[in-house]
């Protein structure tokens, strides 16, 4: 079904009003003396997966939390659809974003179904709208319907991440923010979920920001990779850019730091 003229024009107008879905300009963040993020600019566009990568404590999670307003920048501004987060109703902005964290962040006192529907129920959606939406999401995320009545502690790690994704997608948000969503899973499940997740991202075509420290995962998901080190963006581009045109020696070191299963001992390549 092709879009109607009206839908087309409203999309064009939207496009005209703001350039990016999410735009961070000159944001910085410190905790006491310790600077977590130096002045940083970053734009996130719709229909694209942006991967934030870097060593632990480099500031990539901080960047993600700034985007959803869980923390506020010391300087600079964060804009969602052209409006400054500090000046808007942060709750309604969050309703248009989905957020998934490493362990899922599921509420242990609620069943999977209640976790997923929590916000919709709070907002007063009728059950006639909630039920089909959950069925649809369970299908999308390959989550077994019979698991919906289970509590988080009764689910496996992979299932919990599926439920967490369903919860993030419940209100059909424009932006999906994922902080190491597969970090706590064992390799086999992780590899399966990576494939499924990429499938889902492609189906949905949303603005996706994913934080990881695994370069393989970054290359697998990322339309664009942002490498961060000690609170600064070192390079932005595709995995190929990183290999062909590294911005500095750290980029090369970071890419090569992940051992292939075939080089068994240090120095075996020489």
């Amino acid at each position, binding site marked *: 079904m092709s879009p109607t003229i009206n839908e087309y024009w409203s999309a064009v107008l939207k496009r005209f009003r703001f350039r990016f879905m999410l735009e961070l300009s000159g944001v910085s963040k410190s905790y006491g003396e310790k600077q977590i993020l130096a002045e940083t600019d970053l734009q996130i566009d719709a229909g694209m997966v942006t991967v934030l990568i870097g060593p632990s404590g480099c500031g990539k999670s901080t960047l993600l939390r700034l985007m959803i307003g869980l923390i506020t920048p010391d300087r600079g501004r964060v804009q969602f659809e052209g409006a400054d987060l500090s000046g808007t109703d942060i709750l309604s902005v969050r309703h248009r974003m989905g957020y998934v*964290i490493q362990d899922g962040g599921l509420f242990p*006192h*609620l069943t999977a179904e209640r976790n997923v529907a*929590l916000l919709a129920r*709070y907002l007063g959606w009728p059950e006639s709208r909630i039920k089909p939406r959950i069925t649809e999401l369970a299908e999308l995320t390959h989550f077994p319907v019979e698991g919906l009545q289970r509590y988080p*502690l009764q689910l496996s790690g992979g299932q919990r991440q599926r439920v967490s994704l369903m919860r993030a997608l419940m209100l059909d948000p424009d932006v999906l923010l994922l902080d190491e969503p597969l970090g706590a899973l064992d390799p086999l499940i992780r590899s399966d979920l990576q494939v499924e997740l990429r499938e889902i991202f492609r189906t949905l075509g949303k603005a996706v920001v994913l934080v990881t420290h695994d370069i393989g995962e970054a290359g697998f998901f990322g339309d664009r990779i942002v490498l961060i080190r000690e609170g600064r963006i070192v390079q932005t581009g595709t995995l190929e850019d990183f290999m062909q045109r590294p911005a500095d020696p750290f980029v090369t070191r970071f890419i090569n730091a992940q051992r292939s299963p075939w080089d068994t001992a240090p120095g075996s390549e020489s």
Partner: protein
Amino acid sequence: MMRRCILAIAACLMIVHSVPAAEPPLVRVASKSFTESIILGEMISELAESSGAKSKYLAGLGGTRLAWEALVNGEIDIYPEYTGTITQEILADLKLTTDAETRQALAERGIVMSQPLGFNNTYALGMRERHAEELGIRTISDLGKHPQLKFGFSSEFMDRSDGWPGLQKKYQLPQQDVSGLNHDLAYKGIVSGALDVIDLYTTDAEIAEYKLRVLEDDLGYFPAYDAVLLYRHELAEDAPRALAAILKMQEQITAAEMRRLNAKVKVQNQTEAQAAAEFLRSDLGVDVDSEEGTRSFWSNVSAVAHSIWLRTLQHLYLTSLSLFSAIVVAIPLGIVSAKRKTFGQIVLGTVGIVQTVPSLALFVFLIPVFGIGPVPAIVALFMYSLLGIVRNTYAGLHDIPPQLQESAEALGLPWMARLRLIELPLAARSILAGIKTATVINVGTATLGGFIGAGGYGEPIFTGISRGDVGMILQGAIPAAVMALGAQGLFELAERRLVPKGLRIKQHD
């Protein structure tokens, strides 16, 4: 016209005003917490009723301070006291020497002292007869040669200026091993040999019962402790007939008579009311409708059951009211404490300090503000219940993993909804545990209500201690324990309902 209206209104007011006068006056009687005082209080109460007045009797209200404060503050109208206590303790600062001076000082405080009741119940020191014989001790001076003797004095005697401190100075007594304890327990101590010397009242029934030797006050240290009645000045106007009836006690009770009455309670296990009624009947010719002497076994059982039931209601009233208000106040305090660090530290610190105040002291502190009876007891119990609930609410919320709090915030739920839908259910187990602990402590502490006239299970416990009646103590102690266990069971059931199922299941692996 105007004048007529005013007259009519005035007439109405007069009618309204005169209505209470038609009702029998109420005389509020109290006694201190030992047998003799309780018996005298019973007499006062019965005599007041014999004149047609109503009486409310707070038996064994507490120590001297408590009874005196209650009288001065108008919480009670009358209680029995001793002249020595008035001059040496209550008004010691004034250094009163004559009877006229004492009456004058009391009058300035709105209090009237009756004529002596007829006996002098002064302090004395006593030892086991055989022990005294072995050591050759006859007088208090003789004690100076035996520094190894263990002394055990009633707490009041230990503290008051006319008690142990003055006695020690006067006789230069060398003893170091001196402990303060309840007067009735001191008797148990001397009989068992745990103590060698105790303080006595000269009308104590136990002197003969336990074969004690009363040591001679050879330096004439102890002042006269003539029993008198202290009453509020207003009593003469508000209930003149009742007062006249009460004052029939003046000059009627000899020391021997009083010792005999004390023995009836302490040794023959009669109630104070029975002893008082018998004296009134035989010596004053006042007939008291007391059927207690002729009770059958079964009517006794049903009377005990009835009194336990009444005390259960009183106890439940004290506990539930204080606990309910504590929950209503403490949970919000705990929530705010968890959200606002500085405020939280102040709140937790404050309720923590309240908890360190000894419970009996707290009950007594509250009397000047709230009077006697259930109100100060409920306030004290309320304050005691706060800490557990505030702290557990705070801890329950504080211990929610940060990633769950972050997830709730990232969903876009406003803070009230986060609290209601997520944080409070997650903290439910901890909050309930806090309430459970507070309840069990509350049920136990509420027994101290018996000390300040609040009723409850404490009443038979305190009466039982003063009479040395274990059965009486158990009448309070067993139901109190049962109530505490019951409350605990109730909370375990509540836990099953209130703690979400998802938090009670084992981890799936």
